């Protein structure tokens, strides 16, 4: 049995809490002490870590499919594509979708790129679809497992964005186009606004590849960047385990010495909050190096649970593992769990050719694990205060590109949300009959941000930082129709 390196209490617990002003159990593991230069400005205080109003949800699981999922072949099937297959859009009743006025909202980054172009010849649906649940939502056969949870989900079929290239990934996370300045992502804002609920895990984590921006905090600072986790219990986090040979006893002894020396210094520097936070951070780190691998270790999960996510199948296993870890992180108080699916710079879902091959393969990787996650959250009572978001940077063109492919499509696409006070079985918004434009209740990406923040008891207008005026569009608007 290894000793507890912190058993010698040099400061009583109360004394420590007094110094930091608040109970630490639930506060700011992410950054226990960040010097706030702006605090010296008149009429401004940084947020105190509490929601502004009673929240409906406590945490977010953010599932992002990198590359652009075809909305018509996932959550917004369009039979007219099959009907008019092979025709030029201008020869169909929907020719006005290409009215230049309606295409103006796009801001092109790479001029005359081979991708991100209008595709005129209609490609038929590459997969069948059917209705699911009481709500009767039409969903493609590639997502039948998610379909089976349809009555827990609010589908938003009227998203739009302005980047016709994969910088739209950054845009979906931050609300800003790549040609604008980089802004904090939603996860960073949530971390900035709400205190941590865990004292041995980071409060904002990311799993999976990122390419166009590896940071989140930006002007809020690197303390608000997501901490990158890997599902490998042997190497889940940078420096999580000793990189050189050391016995647990040796390490405990070393931590005990660090603790003792720091406490001796604390007597010479009374009231040095940074030092007290540093002492605490070693206690947390010591716990974290156990807690993080423990979270990744799925041995204690039942065979039934593993099966539910698809851990027993080679195809679903990698994503299933991430989602099961996500649930375990959620249980342990992690606030914002961001999971990015799809390798490559552009993202694997980027089906410029052979949508059928691409999406059938990728949907097979994610469909079952996601449905399993929803079921599991529900059976463990986590569903009601956890928001699950399924999103992608844009949809794909109704017209065909190359060999049965579809190009980038920012004018209309689908995302969905579930749990956390979201009204299940909701179908909100619509694109036109060929899935081109979001025509009914269109939503820019920040409406998703506003909705999530609202459920968490936050309001982006009250999170503003002096000298950093956010635009109206950055704030977005809550999608009230999908709230329970």
């Amino acid at each position, binding site marked *: 049995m290894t000793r507890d390196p912190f058993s010698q209490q040099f400061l009583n617990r109360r004394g420590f809490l007094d110094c930091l002003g608040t109970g630490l159990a639930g506060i700011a593991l*992410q950054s226990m002490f960040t010097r706030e230069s702006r605090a010296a400005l008149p009429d401004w205080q940084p947020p105190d870590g509490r929601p502004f109003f009673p929240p409906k949800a406590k945490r977010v699981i953010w599932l992002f499919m990198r590359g652009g999922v075809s909305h018509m072949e996932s959550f917004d099937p369009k039979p007219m594509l099959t009907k008019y297959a092979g025709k030029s859009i201008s020869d169909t009743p929907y020719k006005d979708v290409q009215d230049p006025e309606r295409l103006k909202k796009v801001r092109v980054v790479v001029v005359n*790129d081979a991708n991100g172009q209008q595709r005129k010849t209609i490609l038929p649906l590459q997969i069948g679809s059917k209705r699911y649940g009481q709500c009767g939502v039409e969903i493609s056969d590639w997502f039948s497992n998610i379909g089976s949870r349809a009555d827990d989900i609010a589908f938003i079929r009227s998203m739009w964005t302005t980047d016709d290239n994969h910088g739209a990934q950054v845009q979906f996370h931050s609300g800003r186009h790549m040609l*604008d300045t980089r802004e904090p992502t939603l996860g960073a804002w949530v971390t900035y606004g709400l205190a941590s609920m865990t004292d041995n895990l980071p409060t904002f984590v990311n799993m999976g590849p990122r390419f166009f921006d590896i940071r989140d905090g930006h002007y809020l600072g690197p303390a608000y960047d997501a901490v990158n986790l890997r599902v490998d219990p042997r190497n889940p986090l940078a420096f999580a385990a000793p990189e050189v040979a050391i016995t647990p006893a040796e390490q405990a002894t070393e931590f005990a010495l660090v603790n003792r020396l720091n406490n001796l210094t604390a007597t010479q520097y009374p009231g040095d909050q940074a030092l007290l936070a*540093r002492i605490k951070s070693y206690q947390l780190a010591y716990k974290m190096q156990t807690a993080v691998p423990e979270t990744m270790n799925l041995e204690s999960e039942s065979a039934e649970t593993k099966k539910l996510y698809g851990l027993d199948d080679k195809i679903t296993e990698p994503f299933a593992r991430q989602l099961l870890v996500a649930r375990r992180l959620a249980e342990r108080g992690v606030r914002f769990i961001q999971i990015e699916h799809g390798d490559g710079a552009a993202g694997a879902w980027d089906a410029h050719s052979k949508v059928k091959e691409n999406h059938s393969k990728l949907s097979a990787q994610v469909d079952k694990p996601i449905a399993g996650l929803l079921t599991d959250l529900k059976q463990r009572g986590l569903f009601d205060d956890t928001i699950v978001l399924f999103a992608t940077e844009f949809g794909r063109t109704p017209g065909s590109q190359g060999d049965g492919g579809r190009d980038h499509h920012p004018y209309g696409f689908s995302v969905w949300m579930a749990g956390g006070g979201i009204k299940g079985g909701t179908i909100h918004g619509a694109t036109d009959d060929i899935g081109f434009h979001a025509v009914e209740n269109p939503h820019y990406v920040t409406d998703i941000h506003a909705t999530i923040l609202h459920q968490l008891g936050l309001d982006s207008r009250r999170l503003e930082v002096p000298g950093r005026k956010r635009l109206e569009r950055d704030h977005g608007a809550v999608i009230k129709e999908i709230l329970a």
Partner: protein
Amino acid sequence: MTAQLFTIPPFSAALAALLLLAPATQAAPDYAKEIKPLLKARCYACHGALKQKAGLRLDAVSLMHKGGESGDVIEKDSLLLEKVASTDKDERMPPEGAPLTPEEVAKLKAWIAAGAVAPSDDKAEPDPRLHWAYQVPKAAPAASAAKTPQAALDLLLDARLQARGLQAQQDAAPEVWLRRVYLDLTGLPPSADEVRQFLSEFAASPRAAGGEAPSIMQRTVDRLLASPAYGERWARHFMDIWRYTDGYGLGEQLRYAQKHMWHWRDWIIESLNADKGYDRMIVEMLAADEAAPEDRDALRGTGFLCRNYFLFNRTTWLDETIEHTSRAFLGVTMQCVKCHDHKYDPVSQVDYYRMRAVFEPYHVRLDPAPGEPDFARDGVPRVFDLHLNKATYLHKRGDEKNEDKTRPMTPGIPEVLAFAEFKPQPVSLPATAREPALLPNVLEDQLRGVEKEIALAKTALQQALAKLDDLLRDEVESLPALEQARAAVAFGEKTILAAEAKPAMLRAALAADRLRLTEPKSPASAAEAAAAAKADALYQLAKAESDLAKARVDAFAPATAKVPDPAKKIPAAEQAVANARKKLDAPGDKYTAIRASLKAQEGPEDKNNTDVQAYPETSTGRRLALAQWIANERNPLTARVLVNHLWLRHFGASLVPDVTDFGRRCPPPLHQDVLDTLATGFMQHGWSMKYLHRAMVLSQLYRRSSSNAGATEETLAADPDNTCYWRMNPRRLESQAVRDSMLQTAGLLDLRVGGPSVNADDSSFRRALYFVQTADVEQRFLAAFDNSNILECYRRQESIVPQQALALANGKLTRQCADAIALRMATRPDTDFIEQAFLTLLSRAPTPDESAACLETMTELQQQKSTNARSLVVQALINHNDFITLR
């Protein structure tokens, strides 16, 4: 709860009377506390000192009565109330943002109903032009009594302490001061020997009079400021402020900044070490190509502008240039004026586009780096004016697709900060700026390159001959094998011939280039051009013959799916030789000019950027004019902003809270006298940063203890946040300083200064400022300690998170350093070892309690049969709070 509970009986007179009375019994809202802040937040931007839309100001009650075009706005049928309560979106005020809440409207209503009472001292906002930061700084008169700048600083702050009844802390122990000044000035801690020597000299040193630093301290500071590590330490700070990045993109495609940006980093280091005036540094960063077009060292400074290069969008590129030039040097935020006039500061959208016009002509290129003709391997990024006459238009609402073509923008600076007419003077450029091939080193470097080519070709020929010999000696019968070997020999010979034809071609081309520039139409010039064309044709023929020989070698390769016909290239190569022969019969006067410069692509469509270019003969002089306006004693902001940055990095707090925004949101700083006295002294002393460092680190203020221990109750109660610097602020070291210190104490740090960026991995022991840094690269150790963000990092965060503990406790690097330190002390007895380890890592001796703790730990570890007891104790000291903290 049912609605009925709230139903009012319609004819209940008594109740109605009660309701009417109700507001009167409540006190009317307090104007100063409830009304004025609301109006300030929501209305002043358009109806205040900054702007008076419809002639209306709302920043004083008297002005509300005076009203605007429609008269008094707060009398009975208040127009103000009507506007804020309107449900018509076109009528409603304020027009932007959310409408006022019903509570806010009710408050306004109640205040107006109660007679719109204003306090007697109600004052309108002052004229924005009178904002403190827009006035030229003046030294505080009181400071004139001081003999040195550091004494002036102490005098001013002591007066503040006295006025507030605060008592300053005693000096920190001399070794604490020593560690502070070492890390502050060089980013590296003192060695144990340096600590010991300093302490003995300090003990013997006479105390100076009047709070002056003893001479041993002054000598130490002088020595550190003269060390090359000083330039590296402060270069890292300025790399934060000036947003250093290496070039990056996607795969081979360069999208951001330039290749070889490190030349700019080295310019920063060298400029700081040489104590180049900050005014001169600004001129070189913004306009060395105009101010000193032949000074190759100075040109590297323009990396500041090359850094903003962006392949895909010129507006994004220029937006960053405008925004960060004004934030870094002037503390002015321009971001919002891209789309509309500033809401707080007297800066207009027109000002923004006038500044854009300053930068409109500029572009970037690589000039040759001495000794390296290959731009993939090296080259110096620099700026130059390319599109001299490109017009700039205001983008309506910031939309680049919506230019206001009716009004071309003239280059200029924000009107409110103008102190003289902005008059750029075109600069005529020397020949080497126009044709970098004429630079003295270019021919030599290219000839050296050819020598290498010839040497390589000769080696290849030797090998081919040896192989042929082997075949002949072995009497190999296989004809194809012999033929192949012979073809290889022929290729080797032809390659040498081609390389040998190159020097004549290069020399002739350069001679022709020179005359073309100096006497363009002379007969001599024509003759040189003809000679160059002939030399070129000779080289091209030799090259074509070498290519043909290569095609013949390739023909022996076995056919593959990819190359079904290996001999396919031969006919084309033969044709090329025939063409080259024909060309040699009549070479004409066109020749291949020497490529000594590489223009950056002006967008992905610009495929000809690698062609040899002749650049413009003049530069607009706009950037030089801008630089001279910024780096000017009459500019009220430049020196103050710099002083504030240095102060922040020496004292752990800034005099002006937001280091990038000195605008009207920022009230006069508490210690404006200190700021202004330092700023004026700085400018009077040739904008010398070393002057400022000395003033700061030799002050009494800087010597104070950072501890609260022994502070009076009054002091702790009156100034708990230490706004008056009655003690020193402890600071956490920046990511790079944490790592560099660790390696330095272990004796592992590689102290070479400058050079190309190195890969950011654990195996490099160079100082961390030399690591490749882009938006895509994250060094995991540095990332744990709030590393700088290349997109913007005017001030480092000092977060404390458990991942930092993990990085220091579990990282391979920490143990490597700990082992090296322990090994060095292997022969010392335990107590001696502990003292030496404390001196090495924390720059101080251990207290008896600390010694005891370490000894006990070592005993404990030995009981655990640990073989690393000493390493682990050293590692614990690396994890000590005070190893990564400046006390």
